[in-house]
């Protein structure tokens, strides 16, 4: 069912609050990745606040959908979104990367309920999602599996082993989501290792391919719904995003892939987020 304008607006406001949390936690941590978490905030907001069957009170609920974060380095967006969804207090986000925290620099399943997998080394999430999706089908269960991957991550050979296997097994209960922000640590993806055309690659492996504006919540959610209706093959949603989305100062800039804002930068970024489209007032600044 299509989202109403007011539902979309609520999700957008949620996304902005999550972006603020991400900036705050990165400044507090003093290390970590900025661009990816910011550009995937809209997708994670849509997943946790609209798409996923889940229960923050009961993270191990058997009937839940499984969300696998394969590119573990964008964990701050998942932590922040989970906190806003009620998995744990938002204040705990400030413990990111600190000694004794549940919010490890790269996520660990056993540290934080609801993480589903341990990730960071790239290319391993789709395989795990595949195993889960196949197992659900064996068990005649309707749980869906979502796997978030980076675009740079597609350089890993193992991704294509998993893409091939999912295509072979027609895993229709699995949806992969690629953050197509066109950057990776060393530069633009098309300079480091050209990925174009991702669509043709996935289609060649027998996947259903959808491309959306990764900042258009309505479009993304419609794509997720379409994927549910495809029974012959797994679906990949290529979410075209703007690296660092939400902070005009750093948008499109690959240098922000792997570093956090300083305290001063953080302050400035927060102001920029809060003035986005005039939707949120300047009151905090």
């Amino acid at each position, binding site marked *: 069912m299509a989202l109403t304008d007011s539902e979309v607006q609520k999700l957008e406001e949620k996304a902005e609050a999550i972006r603020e949390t991400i900036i705050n936690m990165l400044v507090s941590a003093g290390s970590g990745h900025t661009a990816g978490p910011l550009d995937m905030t809209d997708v994670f907001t849509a997943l946790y606040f609209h798409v996923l069957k889940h229960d923050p009170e009961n993270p191990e609920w058997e009937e839940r959908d*499984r969300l696998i974060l394969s590119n573990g380095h964008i964990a701050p967006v998942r932590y922040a979104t989970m906190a806003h969804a009620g998995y744990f207090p938002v204040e705990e986000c400030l413990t990111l990367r600190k000694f004794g925290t549940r919010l490890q620099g790269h996520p*660990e*399943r*056993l540290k934080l309920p609801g993480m*589903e*997998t*341990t*990730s*960071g*080394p790239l*290319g*391993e999430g789709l*395989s*795990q*999602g*595949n*195993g*889960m*999706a*196949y*197992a*659900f089908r*064996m*068990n005649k269960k309707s749980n869906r599996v979502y796997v978030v991957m980076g675009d740079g991550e597609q350089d890993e*050979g*193992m991704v294509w*082993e*998993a893409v*091939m*296997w999912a295509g*072979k097994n027609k895993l229709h209960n699995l949806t992969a989501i690629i953050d197509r922000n066109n950057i990776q640590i060393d530069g633009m993806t098309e300079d480091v290792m050209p990925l174009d055309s991702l669509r043709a690659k996935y289609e060649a492996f027998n996947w259903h391919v959808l491309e959306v504006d990764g900042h258009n919540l309505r479009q993304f959610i419609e794509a997720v719904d379409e994927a549910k209706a495809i029974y012959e093959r797994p679906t990949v949603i290529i979410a075209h995003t703007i690296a660092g989305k939400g902070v005009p100062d750093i948008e499109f800039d690959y240098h922000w892939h792997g570093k956090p804002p300083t305290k001063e930068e953080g302050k400035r970024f927060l102001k920029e987020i809060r003035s986005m489209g005039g939707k949120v007032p300047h009151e905090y600044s």
Partner: protein
Amino acid sequence: MIRPDAKLKENLFEKDIEKKPTRDGFGLGTVEAGKVNKNVLVLCADLSESTRAEWFQKEFPDRFVQMGIAEQNMASTAAGFAAVGKIPFIASYAAFSPGRNYEQIRTTIALNEQPVKIGGMHAGVSVGPDGATHQMLEDIGLMRMLPNMVVINPADAEEARKAVAAAALTPDPTYIRFGRASTALFTTSETPFEIGKAQVLWESEKPLITLIATGSLVYQALLAARGLESDGIGSIVVNLHTIKPLDEATLLTVAKRTGRVVTVEEHQVAGGMGSAVAEYLSELYPVPLLRLGIRDQFGQSGEPDELIEHYGLSAPAILHATRDFTHARKPAHEKHSH
């Protein structure tokens, strides 16, 4: 003398003792485990005949998963299966799994604590003609370094069957090592097996030395012990089938009893079972220790027996090395103590 409580085959030392490859135990054990628990799966990377995964496939076609030649994907897909309550066994050659997919095993199985059971076939030089690329000699070291990982190296096909069936019942990530060549089937269904519990198989009246062996070389160590006995050198032979967790109590007991230890394995001496024994004993009860195994080199083509002989791991080679080591000059501090 063979310990009666080991319940080994009676015709143990006869030349015509039945021989089977330990990988047969993978096929038998997975079928057995599959009958007990419908969540047991077998994943294989295009080697179902030689790994014996096809024995499970024939019995439970719906629970056999063909991965193609993709060991990295196999390891992490298995982790995904385990996350939904399955107990996946993954089968390939040890050179590729854990050789090629080590990081996937480390992150998605060991750190992630998923009960994936990794079967590494064709380990050791006894792979034979295939040569060095396929003769995995570093797997025990790789796997025993991983936190949460259990490491088992069965002594014959029967013990391998028991190890596989037992591993299916634990929640632990587990590595089990198997050989390609047919080797003596010297244990019986009555021989006790418990993960983490070393077995004393041979015990002379006045043992001067302990042989600690693992894998199919346990049989060679027993043959050597019999030869040593007739040379007047009493010994103890320990089957250290579980390399992690290490049965420290048994190691300490035999080290105290004989004061000298020889380890025997078809693996690099660096990082292998002998290293594990040396690490433990040197911290708590240092004794002179000789490690027999592969010394910082790769294997080569040849017949299995020929290669075992060449690398000094046959019964006669173990016997000679052990005899020399037993007669070797005692360390200075032992002299002074007299």
